[in-house]
């Protein structure tokens, strides 16, 4: 089960995240659980592999907002990075970045399970 301590160890800024939830730990952990199942992760993977940079940008942008609000810092930073590249429609191979993001998400998912 995911806990504040696990998230802290993982690198999340839970103090900031909890502040946004007005100290409501239950809500915060519920939302962290929810984000691990966010379909935008899969969308990002699929659309970048298909070269749909615009669609991929929308998915990464949505993730960026949510991850930032939960202060899941490591994955948030990576999503910010890919979002800016996609916003500029930078023609690069996104698979490496997407893989890193997916692994981080999977790690969180494993805590959740």
């Amino acid at each position, binding site marked *: 089960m995911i806990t504040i301590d696990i998230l802290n160890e993982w690198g999340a800024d839970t103090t900031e995240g909890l502040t946004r939830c*007005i100290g409501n730990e239950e809500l915060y952990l519920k*939302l962290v659980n929810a*984000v691990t199942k966010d379909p935008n992760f899969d969308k990002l993977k699929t659309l970048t592999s298909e070269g749909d940079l615009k669609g991929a940008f*929308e998915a990464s942008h*949505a993730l*960026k*907002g949510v991850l930032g609000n939960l202060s899941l810092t490591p994955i948030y930073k990576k999503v910010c990075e890919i979002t800016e590249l996609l916003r500029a429609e930078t023609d690069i191979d996104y698979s490496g970045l997407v893989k890193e993001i997916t692994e981080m998400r999977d790690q969180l998912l494993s805590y959740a399970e």
Partner: protein
Amino acid sequence: MNKLENIRNVKRRVLIVDDEIINREILGNILSADYDVSFAEDGIAAMEALEEEGSIYSLVLLDLLMPKMDGFEVIEKIRAHEVLKNIPVIVMTSEKDAEVKSIKLGAADFITKPYDYPEVILARCERIIELSENKNVIKYAATDTLTGLYTKDFFFEYIRQAELFNKEAARDAVVLNITRFHLVNELYGREEGDNVLRFITGIILDITEKNSGFACRSEADTFCLYLSHLDDYDDFLSFIKKRMRDIPHASSIRIRIGVYQNVDKDINPHTWFDRARTVCDILKNDYTKQIAFYNNNLYEQSIFNECLINDMQQAIDKKQFVVYYQPKYGIQNGRYELKSAEALIRWENPQYGLISPGLFIPLFEQNGLIQKLDSFVWEEAASQMEKWREKYAIDFPISVNVSRVDIFYPEFFNNLKNIIESHQIDPKNFMLEVTESAYVDNVEELVEIIEKLRDMGFRIEMDDFGSGYSSLNMITSLPFDVLKMDMKFIRNMQKDEKSMRLVEIVMDIVKFLGVPVIAEGVEEEEQVNILKKLGCDLIQGYYFSKPLPPDEFEKLIEKELEERKNI
């Protein structure tokens, strides 16, 4: 105290629009302690919620990047909506460009992503709701519901604000009044009257836009305009005249405009508009002009007039009005024979000294006060006649002025009758001077009244003959017993042959009519000689005497009685 603070405990409803449920939940959790919160997952759902019950929302918190309909489109739809446009929108974004764009579209504020501390979000929401509610309250209180122009109080407050930051700019105060506006309401109904006001408001708004100003409806039919200074008002007036051609019921109304140019910034803005209004009011009875400009003389004149009007009743009570008598001499019987006198009013005002009747009589004629004053003179003159009868055993004839205002006063006949009866005066010795212009204005009605006066025994002198515009044809049908030639004829008659000929023509007309003629304003011996030759019967003027108080006039009576003894 801010009234909104009193109702602060009422929970406002906010709408959170975000396609991400996590964001909605975080924000909902922050706001739900202070607000009732509704959610929409995209722009379309947001517009549906707003259109269904928009008036219940105090605030919309809006994500920008959403599927189906993005936040920018939602802002545009809200701003274009007649009711929803008053709901403030706070956008939630992480990008600077989006902040700028949304503010330009009409967003009230923005919240950054990731979200700031809850306290900051709550403070921003509270501030925006308060500002918006204040703005809406002000909007309703600040504008006249019929025209949408500022109300008077807000107009002056906006002037104060404008002057705080731009005191150096030259400004003009303009007052625009719709004369006879009540006629539109009376003749065509209130709704049409409102249409006229809205039409004129359209003209005013065009003017204020052109001249960097703003305006208010200060009274039912009066507008105040605060404008950038104009040296020349010709184009301004032409513009109004042109636009007025299309106004409904244009023939029933008239626009008059008072302008105080380059206002004095050291005096109160209310005074600027008082001055503009004063000159506007001066045009009330002048149908030849539509626009008048304030200057100090004009203003002082109006203040002076106002004082005279206010002081009039008190002046009667305190005996500040004194009746003087100017003699009329017969010149055709071998000697200058004192025949009668004209009673003339003088005002010994403690503040202004002796005030010329030329200053206050036209003024009192305008507002009807002349009736009181004339009545006072009639009573004084009749009383004086009674005193002289007792003292000299003669009925000395006196003429008094009768204004056109007096004639239509319901108690006119009774008043005159009571005065002569109470002093036991034969009405034939109490002559009534009626100006030629009075005849011209109300010819049929006036002829009837004059005939009635003659039936009562009064004799009528037509005063200022030649100054009005009565036609020769009309003169023959007007009832009067004596004709007083306007003093301008006398003053001009020695100037050239034409003027002299004119006096001769007047004398011929009088001979034809078979009535005696009095020449007024005679000052020189030569004038007397000429008039005598032309057959003029009586002369009144400084050549014989200026108007005198009763005790001095008595010396003339005594001299006359002495001369009569010696004939």
